[in-house]
């Protein structure tokens, strides 16, 4: 291709199915009040409720009898009752009782979602083929959560319209957007894909720190303003071990960035944080600090959303050497959108990629020092 040929954006459109994997629907505390809750997801509506047995249950919300919305019904014992004719459905998907009928029809069975409750979170398993998760596809527990070493969850969510959820996945490898969108110039950036897992190591400074003009250590993960070790466990659940410096204090947090698809062109972004409790503070103070930290993270997501709302889907991004491995990331992500039998070795074989951030950090620091000087001159 000659250098004066115009490059065109290619896009084949969104995948024709939803990803296979564990998806977080929310915190268990959102659903445990003894009422049915409705939630639009996976191209349909789900109903979530806590039965008398204390377990959260998830079914398709639309009653297989006459299409009533179970999420506007009531909880009766372990079952959910449809508001239309009071058909009672169990968490296993079977109709347990029709109060006005002598017999339950033999085919009275709806779609029950396989659930998992872990560390205050509720997950459902989605598989286009309808198979259960393999043993090695799991969600990791947070060490010390049960022992009370962390704060309560601070949590927020935002609906992202007009975007397929693959847009947020691209962030995993997008080194330079951390400077332009999140005001956090990366100094070290590495990705690893292996099986159903995708990791990003990110260490970075801040605009304020870089603007001081002091030497910045490039290519080292340790002892930076922000140190982040983030792993997707499957297609939709990102666990980020995050250390953030503010002055002399370092906050150790676990940030979850999770989503579930609502449709092929919208998704719900659920994000939350626990902070390792500082023993010098009481629980209320620790929770309050965690909340403040999450506010900062949340405003960062809104910056991402602004980009997604306006950007074009692009199957053939044009990359430079300082960009991360977008194509290899998408190859990894594609494993969740094909039948298990069609997963190729290339989708799951280990791939490691470390970016050279030297030129980027050098340029960004010069830009920030210059901006700080201009600002100081304007204020003088």
């Amino acid at each position, binding site marked *: 291709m000659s250098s004066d040929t115009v490059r065109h954006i290619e896009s084949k459109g969104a995948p024709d199915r939803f990803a296979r994997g564990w998806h977080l629907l929310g915190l268990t505390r959102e659903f445990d009040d003894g009422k049915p809750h409705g939630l639009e997801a996976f191209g349909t509506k789900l109903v979530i409720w806590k039965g008398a047995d204390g377990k959260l249950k998830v079914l398709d919300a639309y009653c297989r009898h006459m299409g009533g919305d179970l999420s506007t019904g009531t909880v009766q014992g372990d079952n959910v009752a449809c508001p239309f004719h009071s058909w009672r459905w169990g968490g296993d998907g079977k109709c347990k009782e029709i109060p006005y009928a002598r017999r339950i029809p033999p085919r009275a069975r709806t779609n029950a979602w396989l659930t998992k409750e872990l560390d205050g979170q509720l997950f459902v398993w989605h598989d286009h083929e309808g198979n259960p998760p393999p043993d090695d596809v799991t969600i990791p527990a947070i060490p010390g959560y049960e022992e009370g070493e962390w704060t309560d969850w601070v949590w927020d969510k935002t609906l992202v319209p007009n975007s397929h959820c693959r847009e947020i996945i691209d962030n995993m490898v997008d080194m330079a957007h951390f400077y332009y969108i999140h005001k956090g110039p990366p100094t070290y950036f590495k990705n690893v894909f292996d099986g159903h897992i995708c990791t990003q190591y990110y260490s970075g400074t801040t605009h304020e720190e870089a603007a001081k003009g002091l030497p910045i250590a490039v290519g080292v993960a340790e002892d930076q303003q922000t140190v982040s070790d983030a792993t997707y466990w499957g297609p939709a659940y990102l666990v980020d071990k995050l250390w953030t410096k503010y002055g002399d204090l370092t906050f150790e947090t676990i940030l979850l960035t999770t989503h579930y698809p609502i449709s092929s062109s919208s998704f719900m972004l659920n994000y939350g944080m626990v902070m390792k409790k500082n023993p010098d503070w009481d629980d209320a103070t620790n929770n309050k600090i965690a909340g403040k930290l999450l506010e900062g993270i949340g405003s960062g997501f809104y910056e991402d959303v602004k980009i997604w709302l306006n950007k074009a889907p692009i199957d053939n991004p044009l990359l430079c050497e300082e960009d991360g491995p977008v194509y290899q990331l998408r190859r990894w992500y594609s494993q969740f959108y094909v039948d298990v039998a069609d997963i190729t070795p290339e989708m799951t074989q280990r*791939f490691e990629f470390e970016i050279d951030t*030297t030129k980027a950090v050098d340029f960004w620091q010069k830009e920030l020092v210059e901006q700080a000087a201009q600002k100081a001159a304007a204020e003088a």
Partner: protein
Amino acid sequence: MTPEDALPMAPVACGTCGTVVQVSKNSAAQTSIQWEVDSSACPKRSELPVGETCPHLSDSIRDAVFSGALAVPASELSE
């Protein structure tokens, strides 16, 4: 890198376990490693965090650069 611009990869065998991976480097600091076998072929893998490159493999890649078996763009090496 955009597939059509990517540097060709060269095989590097780990000096410790013998696993062969495909490697390219755009600069002294940049490294791409493509495995062609399951990563459990590396006996150290199960002891390491998933994102960490095996230190033995890193050593072998460094050796391959020094020996010239793995080419790094010359302008980068002279810096």
